[in-house]
Every structure is written in structure tokens, then in C-alpha cells.
């Protein structure tokens, strides 16, 4: 509906969005070549907080690398530790007690809810509405309090160990998690009233920021970006791991390919995560949370192992190349936002800057996770 006028090659100018910019949620820089308010060409520059986690993985023994995984993504740290633990357990053949696996899934899903809540608030803040951020933080605070009581930290949990988890959950946690469900559902209705129905919001979301399924495939997008493009893909169900086959949940898919679809996918994911938590609480088996003989020294046999999981931001993968020693030979961390962000360069072409910023918000960026 809005078409830029034809321009001469020397009529564009370059706008540096970032490295410090309110919409980039961290140190990310986008070099935008602009025609007035229209983006002609964008180049994303990442790497400002690159910490070389992969090299750290090569020089540290397996258990010492555990805590690095929490530092990848400060909002959904649990999912990343989970993936790493699953990969190493698969390689080293460590059995995980059923209860521990359930607790992991519980925590991962709660973490997913809290991560999506931050995304929601920050995304609306990109659009200029400040208040929803504080409402979502109120709800998130309940989750963080719950998880802090068990894991001992609010963001960098470092809770999952090879073979189990570091600490069992107690009745108080179960009770507070159960109490949280109806509260969160009520909050979700509030968000839908305040945000989803709003005409200004709808005008900015529906039909804006087109990302096609083909583009998703070429760039390897996952999570809400792919599911918002009508791709019915969720590692939790397509490639079941952990105890997800035993739990009931649906994968929300919208095929609008626009901002609204991606937004709705994430909103429904919150509901589905609540459902998983409820179900996992019902089915929670008794037993230990660490195997009887948890191995102190982990030496996976030589080989190449891969494990993918669905974290809050999409498909996270760990490739582990072992040479049979105590330290990995190579530890590749495939981060989901990396692929999702890569797509931005192509997808934002021809958009106005404010629509591009809205689209960037729907990609659910966490910069340390791109940079690793």
C-alpha cells in the first residue's frame, strides 16, 4: 500500500541503527541504507558481545562448561542447559531418572513462559507502549520467584546436571506452580484486551513484515518465525526428546507470514506451556533426581553427536565432537536467533523504518545468544 518513489542511486543515505539503540535490545547494529523512511538495503552487524563460548567448550571438561550454557540466553537459560545436558548424556550414555526429566521439562516450560513474557513487554515497548512491559514483568516475577527458590538464581540458573538436576522440587513449589496457572491465564486475557484487540496495534501488525515459508527454509528459521509463516514445525513434537511424548500440547501455527501471526504464535505458546506444566505436575513421578551413580568424570566415546531442542527462541542445537577424552574436541552451539536475525536483512527491504523495527521485535532477539 505504501510504495516509495523511484530514486537515484545517490539519493539514499546510510542510517546506523545501533550498536546502542532502544529497539535492538542489546548491542546489535544494523546498517540501513535508506530512501527517506524506506529501507533500501540493510546489513546486520553482530558480534559486539561475542565471548567465544565454543572455544571455552573445547578447553574445559564437560561439567565445567555447564554454567556457560546459562550465559547464552539470559531470558530462557534453562532450555539451553537442557539441550547441552541431553547431548552429553546421549554421548556418554548416562541414564536420567524419570523424575529429573520431568522437573527439567517443568523448569524449561516455566522459563519459556517467563521468556515470552519479557518478549511481549519489550516488543510492545518497541511499538511505543510502555505499560504492558510492567504488567508482564509482574507475572514474570512470580515465575522467577518460584524458580529462584529451587535453582538459587533468577536468570543464570545452572540447575541441570549431567544425569539429573541439582535440587529436588518441594511441595511449596508445586503448590505455587499450580496457583500460578489460573493467575497467568487471567493475565493473558488482560494482555489480549489491552494489546491484541487494540486497533493501533492491529494496524501495525496485520500484513506487515512479510516472511515467507520459503525464506524461512533458506535461512533455517525456527520458533515463532517459522510457525508464523505456516510451517508446522516444533522440535518438541517433530523430533521428540526428553519426556515430551508423554505430555499433551499443541503447536500453534498461523499462516499469515506477518507480524500478527508471529505475535499470536508466541501468545499461544504461553498457553501451551502452561498446559505442559500443568500436565507435568499431574504426572510427576516419585524417585531420585540424580542417578545413583552419577559419573564424576565424563568421557563420551569418540564420535560426533547432535542434539536439537526447542528453546524459547527456537531450535537450539549442540554438536559435540568427542575424541574420548574429558574435554570435548569440538562443541558447536547452533543458536536459533542467529538464523532468525540473519533473515532480517532480506525481509526488511522496502519496509519503512518503524515497520522494520516492529518486525525486528517479532523475531524475539536476544543478542548474547546470537553472538555466543
Amino acid at each position, binding site marked *: 500500500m505504501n510504495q516509495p518513489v523511484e530514486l537515484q542511486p545517490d539519493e539514499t543515505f546510510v542510517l546506523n541503527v545501533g550498536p546502542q539503540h532502544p529497539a535492538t535490545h542489546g548491542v546489535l547494529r544494523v546498517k540501513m541504507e535508506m530512501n527517506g523512511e524506506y529501507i533500501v538495503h540493510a546489513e546486520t552487524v553482530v558480534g559486539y558481545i561475542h565471548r567465544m563460548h565454543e572455544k571455552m567448550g573445547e578447553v574445559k571438561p564437560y561439567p565445567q562448561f555447564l554454567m556457560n550454557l546459562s550465559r547464552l540466553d539470559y531470558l530462557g537459560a534453562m532450555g539451553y542447559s537442557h539441550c547441552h545436558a541431553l547431548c552429553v548424556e546421549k554421548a556418554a550414555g548416562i541414564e536420567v531418572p524419570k523424575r529429573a526429566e520431568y522437573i527439567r521439562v517443568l523448569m524449561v516450560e516455566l522459563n519459556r513462559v517467563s521468556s515470552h513474557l519479557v518478549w511481549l513487554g519489550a516488543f510492545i515497548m518497541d511499538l511505543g507502549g*510502555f*505499560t504492558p512491559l510492567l504488567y508482564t514483568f509482574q507475572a514474570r516475577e512470580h515465575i522467577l520467584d518460584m524458580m529462584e527458590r529451587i535453582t538459587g538464581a533468577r536468570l543464570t540458573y545452572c540447575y541441570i546436571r549431567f544425569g539429573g538436576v541439582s535440587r529436588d522440587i518441594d511441595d511449596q513449589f508445586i503448590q505455587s506452580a499450580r496457583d500460578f496457572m489460573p493467575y497467568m491465564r487471567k493475565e493473558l486475557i488482560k494482555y489480549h484486551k489491552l494489546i491484541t484487540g487494540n486497533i*493501533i496495534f492491529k494496524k*501495525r501488525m496485520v500484513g506487515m513484515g512479510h516472511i515467507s515459508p520459503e525464506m524461512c527454509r533458506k535461512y533455517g528459521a525456527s520458533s515463532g518465525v517459522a510457525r508464523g509463516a505456516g510451517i508446522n514445525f516444533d522440535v518438541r513434537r517433530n523430533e521428540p526428546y526428553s519426556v515430551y511424548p508423554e505430555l499433551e500440547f499443541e503447536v500453534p501455527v498461523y499462516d499469515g507470514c506477518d507480524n500478527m501471526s508471529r505475535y499470536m504464535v508466541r501468545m499461544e505458546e504461553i498457553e501451551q506451556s502452561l498446559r505442559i506444566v500443568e500436565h507435568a505436575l499431574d504426572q510427576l513421578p516419585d524417585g531420585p533426581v540424580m542417578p545413583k551413580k552419577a559419573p564424576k568424570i565424563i568421557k563420551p566415546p569418540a564420535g560426533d553427536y547432535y542434539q536439537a531442542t526447542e528453546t524459547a527462541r527456537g531450535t537450539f542445537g549442540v554438536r559435540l565432537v568427542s575424541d574420548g577424552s574429558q574435554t570435548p574436541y569440538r562443541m558447536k552451539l547452533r543458536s536459533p536467533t542467529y538464523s532468525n536475525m540473519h533473515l532480517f536483512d532480506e525481509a526488511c527491504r522496502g519496509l519503512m*523504518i*518503524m515497520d522494520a523495527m516492529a518486525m525486528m521485535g517479532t523475531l524475539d532477539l536476544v543478542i548474547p545468544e546470537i553472538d555466543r
Partner: protein
Amino acid sequence: MILTLTILLAVIIAIAWAAFNAAYLVLAERRGAGVIQRRPGPNINGPFGLLQPPLDGIKLMAKQLIIPAGADRFMYISAPVLVMCPAIMSFVALPYSDWLQAQNIDVGLLMVFAFASMGTMGTIFAGWSSHNKYSLMAAMRSVSQAVAYEIPMILTALTITLMAGTTNLNAIVAQQSENFFHWNIFPLFGETHNILMPFSFLIFFICSMAETNRAPFDLGEAEGELVAGFHIEYGSMGFGLFFMGEYANIVIGATLATIFFLGGWSCPFGLFPGVWWFLIKLYAIIFTIIWIRWTFPRTTIYGLLNLSWKILIPASLVNLLLTAGLMKVF
């Protein structure tokens, strides 16, 4: 001589009132945001945080005014003045009751609008002279926005002038003074019964929000994409003047809405008219504006222009036409 002194005093009081309002509305906004977001807001400095605005002012004045390299110095320095001065000047013509007014001007309405549109000049000066692409884009947005919203706003004001037959703000209020049903927003009785007036009020309200760059129309300072918009390069009191100018403009917009539609200082029941009624109405409107700001996300620039050119301008034109027709008929 005495007359001149009286006028001078009145003007000084008007300016003080404008500055006071601008400063304390910042506090009111922050406290209001706190209430909506279930947190206290600034409450440390003084009782209820009442010392916050003067302390903020001292802090801003104590800061160095940094002029970026490559900036047009003259325009850069004059821009905040150009934003704040017209806003304060408008206060001279605004009546608060039948006697409380700096100067009763027969073309008060015209004067207020003339000064209000001058504020855009300051915005574009700031955006252009800052030597920053963000601020330039913001300035361009502000101008297109001001052009788009001035038209429906003035058309609505024209409707009021048509009904009142005068541009004297006092006279406009005087016509609505009897009771609630004589106000222009619900003119069921009196000479001007016009069922379209609630829509006029809505148009005027939206336009005054857009004119003053208020959320959800704050595209000139959209922090999500343009960081801080036209005042991105301003620090210290230069920034403070922009800030105060914005709030002074809000007061002007709300004052005009009160005068045009809500009967100014007249009481809803025709009893004890006075300045307090005016202030109650004024601040009710201002708080609604604050409430709106902390509820909605920002519109897009084309959404904003579409709203103006496709909805508000046709609506206000139709409104003007029908009002003229109704006045002819009755």
C-alpha cells in the same frame, strides 16, 4: 501607566502559570504512569515527590549545553526557544474565568492557533540543525504531522466560531454558561443545538493530542525507532525547554477543549461559576491525555496521516457543512 503595569503583571503571571504547569505536569505524568503501572513513581524528593520538578530543573540547568560538531549553531540554540516561547505567548490570551485573564483579545482564538502552529518551527529547526539523521527524519515527520492535523483542528474550531459567532474566547464561554445542557459538547438547549458536537469534540481532542506530539502520536520522538527524535542531540536545559514546551502545549490544547466544548468556567448545574470549575475540567482532560499515553502503543507515520486525511479531515468538513446547514435551518 497603571494600565500598562497591570497588563505587564498579568502577562508575567500568565508566563509563570505556564511554566508552573509545564514543570508540574511532568511530575503528574510520572506519578500517573506509576499509578497505572502499579508502582509509586517519584516520591522521594519532598512530600509526594513535589520537589522533583525544581530539582530536575536545577540538574538540567547545571549541565553543560553541548553543541554537536557540524550543527548549525544559531538554529540549534534558537530551536528550544522557538518551541517554548509561542507556547507561553498563547497563555496570554487564554481566559480562566470571566475576570481571570491576562488580556481579553477579540481574536483570541486566532492568536492561540497562530502561536500553536509556530511550535512546529522550533521542531524543524531542532531536527535540521542537530546534524543527525534521526532528528532530521523526526523533524520531517513532525512537519507532515503538524500540517495534517492543523487542518481538522482549525476546521473544528471554525465550527465553534460559526456557532458562537465570535472568535473571542470569553464570549464563546459566555454562551455556554447556563448549565450542563448548554455546553457545546451536548448542546440540547440554547441557540446552538447541534447533535454533531460530540464528534467535533472527539476530532478536536485527537487533533490536539497529535498537534502536541503526544503518544500515541509521538512520532517526532519515537524512541523505538528514532531514539529521541528531534531533540536527540539536546542536553541540559535545551532539552528541558523542549520538554516544558510539550507540556505547555498540552495545557493549551486542554484549555481550548475546555473553552470550546465543556463550557469553560461554568458549573454543570449553573451554580457558582468560577475558576475552580475551569481547573477541574482542564485537569480532567489532561489526565485523560496522560492515561491514554500510558495505555496505547504508537501509531505509524502513514497510519497517522491516513487517520488525518482519510477520516478526520472529511469528518470535520462534513461536520462544518452540516453545522452551517443546521444553523441556516433553525
